[in-house]
């Protein structure tokens, strides 16, 4: 009896291990494919100069800058709002129909396709509010897109804080908001950060929502107000891969752009891991 159970366990574990390596293998294959093809074009000049020769030469500096603007804009909007919203659902409301409703809505917001956010952003920010194609319209659209991710991960992080912490704080005479500020948030902070980083990754890679709200194909000058358009890395990659007249000549640059994009995400993630580790040590 015990024997069969052990064998069962062995089989199951082997299968899972294989799955793990299979998935990792596939993902590494894609990553390797891009690194292998893209590494040769990377240089200081590639990163710090503008495209030339009809997108078949030069660099991608304006697109990098644009992507950073969009990251900053969307996180400025989504992080405070999302974190506060999560605090509300976890700490303030009881488990009633309202919380349930908010949770369903958050879940649904998370599963709304990015192209629908693009449609929405176009009608509300670009047309109705009259922002035009601009950093602010794109940032708000992207901000809405990551809002549910921020809310969900913050919620999970807050829920993971043991109830005893809160009771202890209350017993010492702290009121609710003090408890949240001094006890709950610091404890949940590392987990919240991980969620935030994930959402930054999402912002830097999305194409569909910015198609009709902010992305420009070519800008001879860097943007200087939030009502300007910007070039963005993912959109730049899309046009390089499909729209130029000489796709073969633009391909090395496309690979290079993909590599830079992935590198930015890698940088963010490592940052997140470091922050998380430091906090865990201090605890």
């Amino acid at each position, binding site marked *: 009896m015990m024997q069969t*159970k*052990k064998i069962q*366990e062995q089989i*199951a574990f082997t*299968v*899972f*291990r294989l*799955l*793990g390596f299979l*998935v*990792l293998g596939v*993902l590494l294959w*894609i*990553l390797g*494919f891009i690194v292998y093809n893209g590494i040769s074009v990377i240089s200081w000049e590639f990163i710090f100069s503008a495209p030339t020769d009809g997108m078949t030469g030069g660099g991608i500096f304006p697109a990098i800058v644009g992507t950073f603007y969009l990251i900053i804009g969307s996180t400025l909007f989504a992080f405070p*709002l999302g974190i506060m*919203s999560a605090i*509300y659902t976890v700490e303030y*409301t009881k488990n009633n129909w309202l919380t*349930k409703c*908010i949770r*369903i*809505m958050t*879940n*649904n*917001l998370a*599963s*709304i*396709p*990015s*192209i*629908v956010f693009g449609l*929405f952003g176009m*009608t*509300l920010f670009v047309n*109705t509010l009259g922002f035009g194609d601009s950093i602010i319209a794109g940032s708000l659209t992207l901000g*809405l897109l990551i*809002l*549910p991710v921020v809310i969900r991960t913050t919620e*999970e992080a807050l829920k*993971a804080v043991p109830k005893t912490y809160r009771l202890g704080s209350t017993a010492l005479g702290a*009121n609710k*908001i*003090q408890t949240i500020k001094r006890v709950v948030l610091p404890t949940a902070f590392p987990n919240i950060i991980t969620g935030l980083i*994930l959402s930054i990754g*999402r912002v830097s*890679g999305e*194409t*569909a929502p910015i198609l*009709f709200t902010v992305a420009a194909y070519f800008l001879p000058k860097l943007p200087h107000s939030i009502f300007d358009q910007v070039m963005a890395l*993912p959109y730049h*990659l*899309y046009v390089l*891969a499909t729209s130029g007249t000489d796709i073969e000549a633009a391909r090395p640059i*496309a690979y290079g752009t*993909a590599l830079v*994009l992935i590198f930015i*995400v890698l940088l963010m*993630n*490592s940052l997140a891991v470091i922050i998380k580790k430091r906090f865990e040590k201090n605890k």
Partner: protein
Amino acid sequence: MKRLIDTLIEQLIKMSGAVTEITVLLIIVFLFKEGAGLFNASEVEKGYTVLVHSENTVERLSPKELKEVFDGNIENWEKLGGKDEAIRIFRFDEIFSIYTEDELGKDYVLLPEKLEEVISADPTIIAYIPQKYLPTNLQGIKELAKMNISLTDFYIGKEWIPTATPAPLFGILPLLLGTLLVSFIAILIAIPLGVGVAIYLAEIANERVRKLLKPAIELLAGIPSVVYGFFGLVVIAPIIQKIGGLDLGETAFAGSLVLAIMALPTIISIAEDAMRTIPKAMRDASLALGATKWQTIYKVIIPFASSGIAAAVVLGIGRAIGETMAVLMVTGNAAVIPNSIFESVRTIPATIAAELGEAPGGGAHYQALFMLGCVLFIITLIISIVAEVISSRKIIKE
């Protein structure tokens, strides 16, 4: 002072609690406002009208019939319930080859008259002209009855040809089935893989492997969909084409594979997080009762993490159904009802992204694309409500 700030923050928190509802509400209002206009739009392209000779017994033609007539597939009025006569098609531009610019007068003031002459002279004619030049004198001419685009044409129409003239066909059935097919296959591939890897990471792998793999997979979640689409087009589609000996590489299956790969990091990351948040005491209790590690996993860990796994699956499905760029690049975008997964399909998001750019703002095509957005929205709403119900029911059972 400090008190005041605290209260202020508290109020702010309470207000922001409603923010998701407001957003969802706004999305609904704006999408449906644009989309609903479709059903007030005329079947015939805006600004145009279809005329026949007054002796013609045909009163009305459906968009489908109009298309067949103007494509030359229906050549006799008898098939449309008229007399046994060959149909003569008259497109607006032909007027310029019959009359010179001078004959049409300054600013085309005489154009309506000339149109009337031409149309009333031929009892077998069907003419497609701008509303603006509709002859004032309708003797000898009959305007075909115009209907608004109907709900049934939209929801169960089998053809999506938004640029067909004179009457565009907005049948979303092929798009809807294409979207569901691609996503369903993708999820079928991704869920077992994703949850399996999550279990491996959370429960089986040792700490060192986990610390290495988890960030690696989270990083890969950040690879933009355009990159996956590009990879799918250059690498995956040709491989499938070769292995399967298919006529073409851009198939629903290629789309599903790319989508499955894309959804994996999200599913793994969230499902693993859910498993890790289970208190250690639960595991220890199970093991102490003599359960093996594997039994602990599928009797304790999975049921307890089910709400998190459900969330992962919902996000995965959401990403698959709504994924735009990657699918646009690999599925071939043929708007037909798919017979097998090795045929080309066109999905709803890809349709929106590809067509919105060239659809004249405010026209029926533009509105139809917003209506597609509404359909997409409703599908995801249903999915997330279902997932919510499933995950909450499981918790109660425990």
